[in-house]
């Protein structure tokens, strides 16, 4: 029960407090502190540039290219990984047999294969899409397979006792059991997709925000570099919040 007094107090979002303190420290460090006079722009300069970039159509086309690579790569990975993960997870042999190879590809950092992808695709959107898909498809497939294998034996045996066949077992027991596992995989993959799409531009020269950051840095426009990083950070938060929001509504039984 909140009292009238308590209700009157102004509620400041807790997240805002730390963010403002951070901005303040940034400002202090770059104006009077050890970073003064370096190429690190002040918080206010960065924010001003950020606002200016929001009014620039080039920002949106770069943003669009990055999101295109992230989203298409992500969708391709999901469409491949989930059915493969389900099939592999259904068979103990297939799971044990494929795990080593999938683990092998999973642990290869996407940056390492950038030289090869440039040879094949050139510094293009297609290269970015491939890189994003490659970066997440194996982890997501393994995660899905784990989830399918995690289905409760008691539940599956109950279904067998009631003469419910393999298709119904997949539909009503295996897939829902795997859903929280797949959800974790998707949440991590969505953030990774964005990161890799940027890296594809930053290191591989693919179009989008990554290349914009690279070019601004080469041109000595450090305020633009920082403003773009700020934009990416905010974008990352939007992506992860959105995924979590969707999950809380679809896999309601897992976080009761």
């Amino acid at each position, binding site marked *: 029960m909140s009292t009238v007094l308590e209700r009157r107090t102004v509620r400041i979002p807790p997240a805002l407090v730390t963010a403002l303190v951070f901005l303040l420290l940034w400002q202090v460090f770059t104006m009077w502190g050890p970073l003064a006079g370096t190429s690190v722009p002040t918080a206010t300069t960065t924010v001003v540039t950020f606002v200016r970039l929001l009014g620039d159509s080039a920002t949106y086309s770069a943003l669009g290219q990055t999101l295109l690579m992230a989203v298409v790569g992500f969708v391709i990975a999901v469409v491949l990984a989930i059915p493969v993960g389900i099939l592999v997870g259904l068979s103990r042999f297939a799971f044990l047999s494929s795990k080593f190879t999938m683990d092998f590809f999973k642990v290869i950092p996407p940056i390492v294969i950038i030289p090869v992808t440039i040879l094949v695709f050139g510094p293009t959107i297609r290269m970015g899409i491939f890189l994003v898909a490659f970066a997440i498809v194996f982890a997501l497939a393994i995660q899905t397979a784990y989830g399918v294998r995690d289905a409760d034996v008691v539940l599956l045996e109950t279904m067998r006792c009631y003469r*419910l066949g393999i298709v119904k077992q997949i539909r009503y027991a295996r897939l829902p059991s795997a859903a929280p596992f797949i959800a974790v995989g998707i949440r991590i993959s969505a953030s990774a997709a964005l990161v890799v799409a940027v890296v594809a531009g930053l290191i591989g020269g693919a179009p989008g925000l990554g290349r914009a950051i690279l070019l601004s840095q080469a041109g000595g426009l450090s305020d633009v570099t920082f403003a773009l990083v700020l934009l990416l950070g905010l974008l990352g938060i939007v992506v992860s919040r959105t995924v979590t929001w969707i999950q809380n509504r679809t896999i309601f039984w897992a976080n*009761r």
Partner: protein
Amino acid sequence: MSTEISIEHVSMEFRTPEEVKHVLDDVSYSVTPGHFVSIVGPSGVGKTTLLRILTGLTQPTSGHVAVDGVPVKGSPAGLAVVLQDYTRSLMPWLTVEKNISLPLLNEKLSKAEIKERIGASLEEVGLSGVERSYPWQLSGGMQQRVSIARALAVRPRLLIMDEPFASVDAQTRFDLEDLVLKVKDDFGITTLMVTHDIDEAVYLSDEIVVLYGKPAKVRDVVPVDVGASRSQIETRNSQRFADLRTHVYAMVRGLE
């Protein structure tokens, strides 16, 4: 409606690389149609193994089991099960009504018929009104009632229960026992139950099968002649009840 179960010379061995574990040795027994039979015995004697053979989940090493003269291969038609661990045998992602209707997917029923079955079985177990709830929103006793309702909804000819009341508190246990007696009076389904609770076995059963030994044999078959109508207070206080429970207890403990 009632079904005859015959168990003929059933032996069961589990082979591991280290040893051969001989669990059941030449077990033979026939369940009279419509009877309620409890299987008791020391922990680990092989009671659940015998039930698993009857549900077709496990094949015996030798011997035969048949339901109404049909050899058991896979779950026999008309079987319903209630297991100890209701949290693992009900699906958390389905509402109570969806859980109950799941085994009905095998039958070609209209939506109205399914709804009618769900309503009738929930009413039988005294749980009307929770159709739209999820199992985890209900108490343990209520969840086990849902399991029983799910079993009744398939209009079973044979009901198999593996320690159905072992995970609920004492008061709920008495309530559920009386519910099972009511179901028995209403439908006369041939029922086999494994229990550790000898009082419960005497209270509910028409006949008690005592398994004993390693490997287990049928030590004795005890007809329970405490009358057809039973009550928690009168039946449990009768001399005959006390004699039977002492007799069965002594056998389970290897004292007789």
